[in-house]
């Protein structure tokens, strides 16, 4: 008798479930929750309801994609909410020069924030949580200074179309988010950059020795994350049809990190699950929606979210421990 035969006992194979759960548990949870809702929630399958859910989850998905890349390098980006606010504050200022100009400006702001974050992390060598904390605090302040702390209405039809329009029956927001998911999935799976990003998260010294320009890759990752956040920011403005720098993207860093973690991406880096991240965001959205539909108070929603995070991380923990 060897240990192998012990491992393959008849019946339920615990080890395999343990390996399977963190990676695919989120999909199983979504299926269960959807089935439950189909059975017990009236009008759950109504198109208007699904539409609202998708529109609400889109910004979180976009921010979480960037967060997943950063977490893949064993980093974290707390500044995403502030970047959204910054993008939101800049939009009304430059809308007079046309939609394209306004969007470009807010994307450039995202690039700049990403450069600062990336430089602090990669070149100065700060811990990501501290490096991005500075812009988490300062970024929203800057956004409020730019906007003068005022709420501004947006009346540009092109921009509003991005936020509330439809294309082929689906909201533009969903199309944009889906496109970005494909782009990020492609980057992670099919490009050299994606490989290098994962290598840095897996073992940075070894990656450096292998001749990978680690600092440049890291800075690029933070830039991508910030740009995605500024896209989410301008889409939020387009959807609400007003720019409120004090409210846009508030606490979204927590939702994004939650989506990434629940989706099976380990915080220790070296692996990014893009579809898992999307599923993580969808699951959290479904949980909230289910509880609202059943008239449960939002306080219990938060506690359930907390429990889901803990379960997801606990399940993932087994794989990493050697």
């Amino acid at each position, binding site marked *: 008798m060897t240990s192998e035969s012990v491992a393959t006992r008849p019946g339920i194979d615990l080890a395999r479930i343990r390996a399977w759960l963190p990676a695919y548990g989120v999909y199983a949870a979504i299926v269960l929750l959807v089935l439950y809702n189909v059975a017990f929630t009236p009008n759950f399958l109504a198109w208007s309801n699904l539409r609202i859910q998708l529109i609400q989850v889109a910004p979180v998905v976009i921010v979480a994609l960037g967060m997943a890349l950063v977490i893949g390098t064993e980093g974290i980006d707390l500044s995403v909410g502030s970047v959204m606010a910054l993008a939101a504050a800049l939009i009304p200022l430059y809308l007079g020069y046309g939609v394209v100009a306004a969007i470009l400006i807010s994307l450039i702001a995202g690039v700049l924030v990403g450069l600062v974050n990336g430089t602090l992390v990669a070149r100065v060598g700060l811990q990501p949580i*501290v490096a991005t904390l500075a812009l988490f605090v300062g970024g929203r302040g800057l956004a409020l200074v730019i906007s003068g702390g005022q709420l501004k209405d947006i009346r540009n039809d092109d921009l509003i179309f991005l936020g509330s329009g439809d294309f082929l029956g689906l909201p533009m927001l969903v199309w944009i988010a889906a496109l970005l998911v494909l782009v990020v999935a492609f980057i992670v799976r099919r490009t050299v950059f994606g490989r290098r990003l994962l290598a840095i998260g897996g073992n940075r010294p070894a990656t450096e020795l292998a001749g990978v320009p680690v600092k440049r890759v890291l800075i690029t990752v933070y830039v991508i994350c910030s740009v995605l956040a500024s896209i989410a920011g301008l889409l939020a403005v387009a959807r609400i049809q007003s720019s409120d720098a004090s409210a846009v993207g508030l606490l979204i860093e927590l939702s994004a990190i939650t989506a990434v973690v629940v989706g099976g991406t380990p915080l220790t880096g070296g692996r990014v699950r893009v579809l898992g991240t999307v599923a993580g965001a969808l699951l959290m959205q479904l949980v909230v929606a289910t509880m609202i539909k059943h008239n449960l108070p939002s306080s219990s929603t938060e506690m359930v979210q907390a429990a889901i995070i803990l379960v997801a991380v606990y399940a993932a923990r087994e794989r990493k421990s050697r």
Partner: protein
Amino acid sequence: MTPIVSDPEAPTAAVAADVRRAERTDRIVSLVQRQGALAVLIVVVLVAAASFPNFRSFDNAATVLVAAAPLALIALGMTFVIITGGIDLSVGSLYVLGGVVSAYASQWGLLPAFLAPLVVCGLVGVLNGILIAYTRMAPFIVTLAALLGARGLMRAISDEGSTTYLVKSDAFRSFGTGSFLGIGYPVWLVVVVFALGMILLARTRFGHAVHAVGGSEDAAALMGIAVRRTKVWVYVMSGLLAGLAGAINAAKLGSGVTVLGIGLELDAIAAVVIGGTLLTGGAGTITGTIAGVLLLGVIQNMINQVGNVPSSYQQLISGAFLAVVVVAQTYLARLRRVT
């Protein structure tokens, strides 16, 4: 061992001078790193005193101190957690939860108003600590979940934040608003707690264990330190102090306010980091944390003195300040390693 240098005179003198120089650099760098925040605080206070006549008044100083009291307590707990190499994101929520629980419990008198938040927030700290120490989950994630959970709990007991419990106990209320020698009671409480914290960190076996765990968990375990127990205790302390901070705030405001505390955990981390405690763990001082907290408080006060300046500028300045300090510290740390 045979002496390597046969003629001891010239070479050893040169080596000794080298060593002395290296030691001196090391001392200066370490001093700046540890007491830099204090130096900056003194400069900022002098500048403020010179530019704003009102800043110099005793009343204003007392105001700064009272306003800084809750953050100071939270930052103290955070200092212990960060020295062990961890982080506690739940303190902002616990602070609010503690305030609401305290205001609710004040109907039974002064003592329950203090004890109830300590019990509730301490229990959350126990949960944090056990999950982090025994399941080896990342502190960042565990306390993030606790942030959500504590906020949910707070909302649940305040009917989704719509019920504001007023402080019923007059004794408790007067603790928050009264003063001794012109300085509010909360400040005196904070002074006592900080003195205890300093003794705990510098003079007790627990303090040594905290440093050792942050320096190297494996080495600490080999030294016979109860690593897990130490970790649990720092999170319990952090929870207790956040609860106490909430109680103080409830006493000051006369009610358990449900909307405060968002981002307070990050303010506390900022204060600790500005104070020279390294996020990598193993090193840190409580005096630095005091300086960090006061620095944030004085900056806010200065901005209030200028008047008409929106609070957004304060966030901007705090953020910039934090960036400068951490970058400077990283360079100092590197300088130390090189020499």
